[in-house]
């Protein structure tokens, strides 16, 4: 399913959180957004997920206008937000119990997801027994289990240590290849964005707007070795330079204002 945000922008009172922004993610594409904190990435996500009505602009899934409608895309945050009183399986089927009935099929599917993606022994465990990485896996399974073709992942690995993070990135790529969904991924880690994505969009700060987009032509499936390949380094240099010049501009502006 294709995702398209057309000229969406949002003002909180008098301050513009997000300048008019247009973004397109192709069916089955893995797209990332990188940018400094406070650049309106999360505002954009809240608009796409329907939690926030944009001041102006529209959101389309394929050709359907879904502006301000919730329940159309999968959504995952940095915090795993697992409910402590639900077992792994029950957490995975949360979407079904919030919007309808949990059927036997939902439960079977949750168990199958857990088995398939390495948590088979923990289906009946409460979240407090799991490690941070395992909890984020369950959170992703919960997002997969709502059967939305478009998934928004807002810094899902931001709270993990770097080793776990690397493993989770590879795992996410496996899942994505397996499930063939459209992914929009927020991060401020340029390495992570390049490693995972087909396309990386760079945002500038206050009010947030897209500065540039880069196609990542690195071959798939990708392994850790690619992180040190010349093509990867070149890509990273280019993106970092853009972000760095943005940061300098911002600092200069703040200096003038002060």
């Amino acid at each position, binding site marked *: 399913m294709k995702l398209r945000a057309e000229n969406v922008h949002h003002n909180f009172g008098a301050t513009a959180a997000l300048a008019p922004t247009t973004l397109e993610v192709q069916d089955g594409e893995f797209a990332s957004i990188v940018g400094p904190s406070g650049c309106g990435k999360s505002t954009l996500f809240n608009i796409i997920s329907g*939690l926030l009505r944009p001041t102006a602009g529209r959101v389309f899934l394929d050709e359907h206008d879904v502006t301000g409608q919730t*329940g159309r895309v999968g959504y995952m945050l940095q915090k795993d*937000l697992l409910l402590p009183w639900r*077992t792994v399986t029950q957490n995975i089927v949360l979407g079904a119990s919030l919007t309808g009935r949990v059927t036997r099929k939902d439960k079977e599917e949750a168990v*199958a997801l857990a088995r398939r993606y390495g948590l088979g022994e923990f289906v009946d465990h409460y979240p407090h027994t799991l490690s941070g990485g395992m909890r984020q896996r369950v959170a992703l399974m919960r997002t997969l289990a709502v059967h939305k073709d478009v998934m928004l992942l807002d810094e899902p690995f931001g709270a993990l240590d770097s080793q776990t993070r690397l493993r989770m990135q590879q795992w996410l790529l496996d899942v994505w290849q397996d499930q063939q969904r459209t992914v929009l991924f927020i991060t401020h880690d340029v390495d992570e964005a390049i490693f995972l994505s087909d396309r990386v969009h760079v945002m500038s700060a206050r009010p947030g707007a897209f500065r540039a987009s880069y196609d990542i032509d690195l071959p798939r499936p990708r392994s850790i070795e690619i992180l040190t390949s010349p093509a990867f380094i070149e890509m990273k240099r280019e993106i970092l330079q853009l972000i760095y010049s943005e940061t300098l501009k911002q600092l200069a502006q703040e200096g003038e204002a002060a």
Partner: protein
Amino acid sequence: MRRVSQIVLPVALTAAVFGIWDIVVNVFTIQSYVLPRPYAVFAQIGTDWDVLQPAMWQTIEEFVIGFFVGIACGFVLAVVMGELRIVRRGLYPLLIASQAIPIIAIGAALVIWLGFGLTPKVVIVALIIFFPVVVNVLDGLANVDRDTISLARAMGAGPVRIFLHIKLPGTLTPLFSALKLAATFSVTGAVLGEWTASTNGGLGVYLLEQNSRLNTAGVFAAILLLAAIGIVGFLLIAGAEQLATPWRTRSTPRRLPFRRRVPVTRAAATQSIKGESS
């Protein structure tokens, strides 16, 4: 091993207290109307059982009914206050102010309004439990992660489902903290109720009667039984807590003997995911 020491240690300590009590009375030859020997207290329970037993049941009745009435009212009010900000803003200061009023003062008024029957005692016990329940449940509702609610909304959930699946289960832990506290001092509430609004029956009344006769063994008999009610109440609530919030102490839910788990064949289930996602 830990289980055993959990039971053995308090029992041994209680026995030691009774032992020391007995020795002190003997050594200092304390008069029995000042402090009776422990065995005299137990003897009193034995000989006066015909009076004590109905008195105890009456106090238990006041305690149990008042307890549940207090929980129900407190819980409902907390939910209403949690969901409607305007009610919370208006009522919360009043609620806190109400706690400054000594319960015994209300007790006198309750007798005028409700007479000498069971009702005023139930109301006093309920009033005592009510406040910690409201405060704790309200806390539980307020501490729900805003992001969890956003996530549920993004999944397409309405306010009723969000309340039932996300907010409500979160109130269980603070609710039980309140109940464990309340279990012990609501016995005090029942006695207070009896003192202000009773002519007959109840351990509180028995205690006053024995006191006026300088029968200290009788006073201590009532105290022991009141303590027993409080302890049993506390243990029952702690047990209920274990059953109601298994995730706090266990890694997996209890297996219920009559609920079989759904067997899942790996191949069939895998197919269902792949089929759905494309």
